């Protein structure tokens, strides 16, 4: 034997050379650059944009999109998609509004449990029965909207007046709105999960190559169910925030089209729809880009229809920049 393999752990390993850094998502930096350009441009040219009240307003508006986009990023990283987040928000809002008379804790917990269960149903159908994610969550999108209306007494507007519940959507901690804090905590936890825990690896491995992941001992099914549960849980939180902000549960309106905003944020942020990769920070940047555009167009009195057209253009450019490249 020419050389010993030295699989004995007592032999100190030689340090391999380290000069090469991975291209840590060029598109994430591109998105960050685009955000900076937008903010600076608006600060210079849009009257009243660079005021602290307006900037807090942007963060306030974006917090619910960020919450759902974080969950959506994890789902998309497993190669799936979750169309049901908007409906889950409405269900959570409805459950909380109806149960508030029994106490804030009961209402909030029940809302989050129901939301999470909806996610577990999504994940189980997808991972266990191998139905396509887009079909399963489309069904939940439709059913959830109906469920929310049933819960809130056939779709009545249920008004909410509870000082403790109001904190979610209208409270502040110092200058910082509580909902912005909640979104930040969710972002922090998600980044930590992806970077530092086996679960994060399992998410990326399941999305990158599910058969290979399974053979390497990755609990693919459990991982997939978990990400849909997390996505629904975060959507539930977002639903509570919106209900608190509105002071009412509006089963027909809460979370409407939220799934599209969340997917747009994820895509603009640089997470590939094909799965196996994820950037939570990118999704936050993506959500901010969309929000800054919406806010500034609003301030510049640009018609809403035109702002939608520009949103669409941005999504297309983001996807174009991420396309697989030929050598």
């Amino acid at each position: 034997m020419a050389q010993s393999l030295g699989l004995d752990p007592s032999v100190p390993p030689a340090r391999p050379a380290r000069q090469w850094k991975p291209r840590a998502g060029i598109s994430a930096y591109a998105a960050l650059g685009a955000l900076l350009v937008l903010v600076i441009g608006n600060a210079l040219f849009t009257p009243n944009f660079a005021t602290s009240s307006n900037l807090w307003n942007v963060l306030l508006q974006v917090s619910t999109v960020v919450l759902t986009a974080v969950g959506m990023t994890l789902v998309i990283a497993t190669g799936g998609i979750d169309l049901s987040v908007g409906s889950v928000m409405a269900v959570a809002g409805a459950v909380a509004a109806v149960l508030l008379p029994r106490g804030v804790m009961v209402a909030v917990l029940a809302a989050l449990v129901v939301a999470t269960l909806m996610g577990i149903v999504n994940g189980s159908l997808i991972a266990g029965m191998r139905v396509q994610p887009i079909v399963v969550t489309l069904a939940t999108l439709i059913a959830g909207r109906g469920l929310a209306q049933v819960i809130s007494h056939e779709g009545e507007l249920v008004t909410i007046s509870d000082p403790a519940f109001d904190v979610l959507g209208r409270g502040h901690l110092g200058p910082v709105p509580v909902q912005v804090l909640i979104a930040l905590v969710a972002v922090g936890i998600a980044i930590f999960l992806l970077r530092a825990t086996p679960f994060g690896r399992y998410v990326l491995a399941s999305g990158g190559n599910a058969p290979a992941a399974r053979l390497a001992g990755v609990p693919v099914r459990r991982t997939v169910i978990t990400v849909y549960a997390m996505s629904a849980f975060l959507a539930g939180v977002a639903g509570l925030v919106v209900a608190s902000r509105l002071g009412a549960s509006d089963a027909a309106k809460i979370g409407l089209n939220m799934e599209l905003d969340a997917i747009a944020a994820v895509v603009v942020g640089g997470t590939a729809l094909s799965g196996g990769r994820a950037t939570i920070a990118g999704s936050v940047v993506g959500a901010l880009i969309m929000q800054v555009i919406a806010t500034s167009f609003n301030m510049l009195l640009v018609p809403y229809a035109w702002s939608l057209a520009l949103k669409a253009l941005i999504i297309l450019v983001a996807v174009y920049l991420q396309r697989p490249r030929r050598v």
Partner: protein
Amino acid sequence: MSDAPLLRMEGISKAFGGAMALDRVDLSLQRGEVHALVGENGAGKSTLMKILTGAYHRDAGVVQLEGSEVDFDTPADAQGAGVCAVHQEIHLLSHRTVAENIYIGREPTRYGFIDWGRMNAQAAELLRGLGLDIDPEATVESLNTARQQMVAIARGVSLGARVLVLDEPTSSLSPREVSILYELVARLKANGTAIVYISHRFDELYAICDRVTVLRDGKLVATRAMAGLERLDLVCLMLGKSREALRDGVTGFGDHRDAGEAVADRPAVLRTEHVASGAKLHDVSFEVRPGEIVGLAGLLGSGRTETARAIFGADVRNGGTVFVHGESVNPRTPDDAIRMGVGFVSEDRKAEGIIPELSIRENLTLAALPTLTKFGVVSRVKQREIVERYMTRLGIKASSADQRIRELSGGNQQKVLLARWLCTDPKLLILDEPTRGIDIGAKGEIQRLVNELAKLGMGVLMISSEIEELTEGSTRVVVLRDGCSVAELTGAEISPQAIIRAMASDSPAASAVNATSPVS
């Protein structure tokens, strides 16, 4: 055969970024010639062929087809000029029929509609002319890999290919299917088609190639006639080593067979009794002792991979018993098997091995993550230590542990996958075609590694379709046929002839016994 070459490539260079992938390489093909193109992975074979078929653009050099200079912008241009490639991974529309695939983009029409009758008739005639018994109206997915490959070749022929590139055409073919391919190649050769034949299998090169061009590190090493070129010399050319520097034997296993006696009385790490699974596996019994390399031989479809998957819990077992360390076990998922100390390297590195977008580090530690985790967090220190140790010890060549695994050569990917199991400290390692599709240098290294692991006391079950790997590497060889274990060879009984005899059910008595044997 006229003297002017059909195709001449001269001084071809190509750089990716700063790295020279090809440096002034020449290649010429005569009419009716089968020309082998060999070299280790990364030698530049595929780059050269991609330039020939218009998938890449060359930086410098000249390509001449029948004396006139050509410059293909796209693979379609090349096809139009009669230069066609059939790749390792077959590019066909699996839900469409054979005829549709052959004539896609140039379907015969009638009043603007596809003339199905004429298309099917033409396809049938083409296939018959090539000696292939394939129904043109069958969907491609209903054919086995070999036949799909034949369809891809037939498509090339129907395009009027004068130069056909076959890239690893036999990597998923059974011996019988290989002989069909040989016949097809002989027929094309007789028609004056020039064939570039890329393969790692020497037997094939010597069986059908006229000349060989050897590349190494993007440079042309030599072009020689196959007749009169000794195998050892060809290996030397590929590796850039002198004859003396090469070890004895074709594989890196050395003398493992002698260990057979020494381990005979150790209790088995794995024992299977009458294992059955799915439609293909009926009755498999054998055992593996610590320190042994047990070869699992059999033709394609004999149930080798199915055996491995059933033991590993990847497929549901519907009969028989598996004992690990003497205890009857029933792993329902790979996760269960891993916890029992079993590791499994799949034969399909791309589909079932690597997670392409993840780094070497993340791929390497994937199976061992639970043991690297403290309070729910993956320990960076332990992780780095393990990754560095195995990268160094296995000689994994990469720019860093952060490099994406899909950017590595096949041999290095395979080493990462082996390391993925080694760091779980398995008692039994199941290797399904551990050296398939990797270059000869890395192949020897992996074989030596497996040998070393067995010497350290690991039990190894090695599936291989390479006879040399089985005869030189195994302490015992278990032969499967039609989903049943039919023979076990030990020590001096292990020879290519004996293995092949047991694999092929050509004796009528054997197949009669087989047909009536009870399916458990």
